[in-house]
């Protein structure tokens, strides 16, 4: 299938060049170009200005209010928060403890249950490896899902190497796990369940409260990676029975390089620390807490808590606007993931018969991604989309639109407009699209083997 496309592309591109000698005069004499030659060409499109940013799941800009709270600790208040013998240490410690309260308040936890880390990846590693190793004498089974973030899956792989068994739960076609399947997967050897709150690629929300209730009833620890959910949807670790939760700073308009792990105190969850050192953060995460970053994530959490409803309403407005525009203008656009149980700031669409990477290249004036930033260097289709049963060709044609607090309606309009234009252009030159228009069912064709 692909090779045919490539063939067609090269033919289109080469045709005018190879035949240019005798045709050249014809072009220049009447000053017109052959329509075919320029129909698909976007080389002359001059783009003046910086691209728009619509990749809020990869990272978000630092809120000026957060930076304002951090700046004093990047300049004059430079003490080590663990220094107990002088004022420089005390003032920084006070700021770090205030930040801990702000993070705890957002998830209705106790400040003593918050451990500052370097980000959600470290939090996930600490939670998974820490719990698994601590209870490894009695229990050696972990449950997670196929659509988790890479760092959870990779931690699980590492634990498999240490002799743990891991169940990778499949998800349904809407991206949500089957609660009954999940309940069946829990055994008496299960020590930990790790299921993310909001998926980073398709924005789907898992039924966290239900999962938490089952885990509590079966006395299994429940960890959730809430990097994409925190500050965006309401989370209460007590009513949802969450035992461990990973938080990231830079997904909530905070600084990069800081995160937090919530570790429940009652009933107590015990972890084996990964890092050895000075015993900071109750011995769970040695290393000096980066005070300016901690202050930043704290302030970001406070703002998120105060403005959650306001921001959420804006996300709904923007995503509906984007979806309306694209869906009315273009046929055969598929939304990946459940349309209702989702965080509206993340819209993942597959444009049938368009290759995602080509579309991303054409949309160079908008910063978009076809999936997670971690895997955007490879051309492999997303494993999340494969897990929800998306066809190979549709998985290749997906684009994630990530909107955030600072996205404007004009940006969404511009993106939708450009997207529609380029999808139409790419489909116009696709032989597959042509065949679909002629009523040929592509799935029934026997492609010859090369």
């Amino acid at each position, binding site marked *: 299938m692909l090779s045919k496309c490539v063939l067609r592309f090269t033919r289109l591109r080469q045709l005018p060049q190879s035949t240019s000698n005798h045709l050249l005069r014809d072009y220049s004499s009447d000053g017109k170009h052959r329509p075919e030659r320029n129909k698909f060409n976007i080389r002359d499109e001059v783009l003046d200005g*910086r691209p728009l940013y619509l990749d809020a799941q990869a990272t978000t800009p630092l809120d*000026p*209010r957060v930076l304002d709270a951090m*700046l004093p600790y990047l300049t004059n208040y430079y003490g080590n928060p663990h220094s107990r013998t002088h004022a420089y240490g005390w003032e920084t410690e006070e700021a770090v403890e205030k930040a801990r309260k702000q993070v705890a308040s957002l998830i209705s936890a106790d400040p003593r249950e918050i451990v500052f880390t370097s980000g959600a990846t470290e939090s996930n590693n600490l939670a998974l490896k820490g719990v698994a190793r601590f209870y490894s004498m009695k229990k050696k089974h972990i449950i997670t899902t196929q659509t988790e973030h890479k760092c959870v899956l990779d931690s699980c792989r590492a634990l498999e190497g240490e002799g743990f068994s891991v169940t990778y739960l499949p998800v349904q076609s809407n991206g949500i796990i089957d609660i009954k399947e999940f309940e069946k997967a829990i055994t008496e050897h299960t020590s930990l369940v790790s299921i993310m709150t909001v998926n980073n690629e398709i924005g789907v929300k898992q039924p966290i409260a239900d999962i938490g209730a089952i885990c509590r009833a079966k006395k299994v620890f429940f960890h959730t990676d809430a990097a994409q959910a925190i500050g965006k949807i309401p989370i209460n670790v007590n009513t949802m029975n969450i035992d461990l939760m990973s938080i990231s700073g830079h997904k909530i308009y905070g600084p990069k390089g800081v995160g937090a792990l919530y570790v429940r105190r009652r009933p107590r969850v015990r972890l084996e620390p990964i890092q050895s050192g000075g015993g900071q953060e109750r011995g769970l995460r040695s290393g000096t807490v980066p005070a300016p970053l901690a202050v930043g994530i704290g302030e970001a959490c406070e703002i998120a808590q105060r403005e959650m409803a306001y921001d959420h309403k804006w996300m709904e407005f923007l995503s509906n606007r984007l979806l309306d525009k694209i869906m009315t203008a273009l046929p055969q656009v598929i939304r990946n993931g459940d349309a209702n149980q989702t965080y509206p700031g993340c819209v993942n669409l597959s444009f049938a018969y368009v290759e995602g990477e080509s579309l991303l290249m054409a949309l160079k004036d908008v910063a978009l991604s076809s999936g997670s930033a971690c895997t955007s260097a490879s051309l492999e289709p997303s494993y999340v989309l494969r897990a929800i049963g998306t066809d190979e060709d549709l998985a290749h044609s997906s684009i994630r639109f990530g909107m955030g607090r*600072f996205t*404007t309606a*004009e940006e969404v309009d511009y993106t939708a407009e450009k997207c529609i234009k380029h999808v139409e252009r790419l489909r116009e030159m696709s032989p597959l699209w042509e065949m679909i228009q002629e009523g040929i069912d592509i799935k029934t064709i026997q492609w010859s083997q090369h």
Partner: protein
Amino acid sequence: MATGEIRMKVLSLYKSLLRESQKFSSYNFRMYALRKIRDEFREKKLLTDPARIKEEINFAEKNLGIIKRQVIVGNLYSTEKLIIEKNN
């Protein structure tokens, strides 16, 4: 403060906030600030409790300070304008 005085104070704060926010060099921060200020004031227009009003005035003053400082920081490291700013 008398009601008239409070009214004057709130109006002047509203104007200052909008005026300062216009100076954000970043398109996204500028548009957000303007939207947020308008929505906040509209939402709290009908407040009558003097204690709450005082609280909100303090909050607005604190944010005015943040905006003034962050406009300066933003201008120190400003970037090229966004594509939609240039084409409009």
